[in-house]
């Protein structure tokens, strides 16, 4: 599972924004909201006749697979940097 998310954004005429987001603490803080989102997702799965367990497993795998993702677009006018570790 990813542990740290590094994000940098720079737009024309704006200051550069740098964020270091520790994933696990953020997930713990947002856990009540995540619980609501999960319940809504389960309901949506039942409505659309999708197995909710498989859907949750697949979503969890997708989240875990994000580790190692690196996106860097550096141009004179803008910068986007995303690194998931």
């Amino acid at each position, binding site marked *: 599972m990813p542990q740290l998310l590094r994000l940098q954004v720079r737009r024309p005429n704006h200051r550069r924004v740098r964020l270091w987001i520790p994933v696990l603490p953020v997930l713990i803080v947002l856990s009540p909201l995540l619980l609501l989102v999960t319940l809504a997702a389960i309901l949506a799965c039942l409505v*659309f*006749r*999708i*197995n909710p367990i*498989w*859907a949750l497993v*697949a*979503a969890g*795998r*997708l989240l*875990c*697979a*994000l*580790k*190692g*993702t*690196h*996106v*860097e*677009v*550096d*141009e*004179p*006018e803008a910068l986007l940097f995303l690194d998931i570790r």
Partner: protein
Amino acid sequence: MNEQGKQILQMLAEGKITANEAARLLDALEQTEVREREPSSPAHEPNQRRAKYLRVMVDMSESFGGDGPGKVNVRVPFQLLRAGVQLASLIPPQALGRVNEELKKSGVPVDLTQLKPQHIEELIEALDEMTVDVDQPDAKVRVFCE
């Protein structure tokens, strides 16, 4: 002892070979068996060094496009590709039909209903050996697996 070892001893008993020759043959046979059992034989190396990421690197010089020099560096884990296909396989066929229509309108005629997790494994294996190098005076593009 296997069949070949017994044959060597039989030849020794019948006097067809000397004791020294039998010992050499048995040694050679043992070494062959060890090599066959060895997990790190060269035949297994490609599987051990399987690529984990797809990397796209673009370097643009000042003259490219008029916006000045730029750099794009993207690394996508193959695991993300696998997880995405698994998630896509849960989408109902009606929804996939609509997605296909929209993709076709956008000029990407891909049939997502035909995309199965086993296909993605074949694709990743094929991508493993792929390298794309575009070298122009004002831009360099590299697509490879690592």
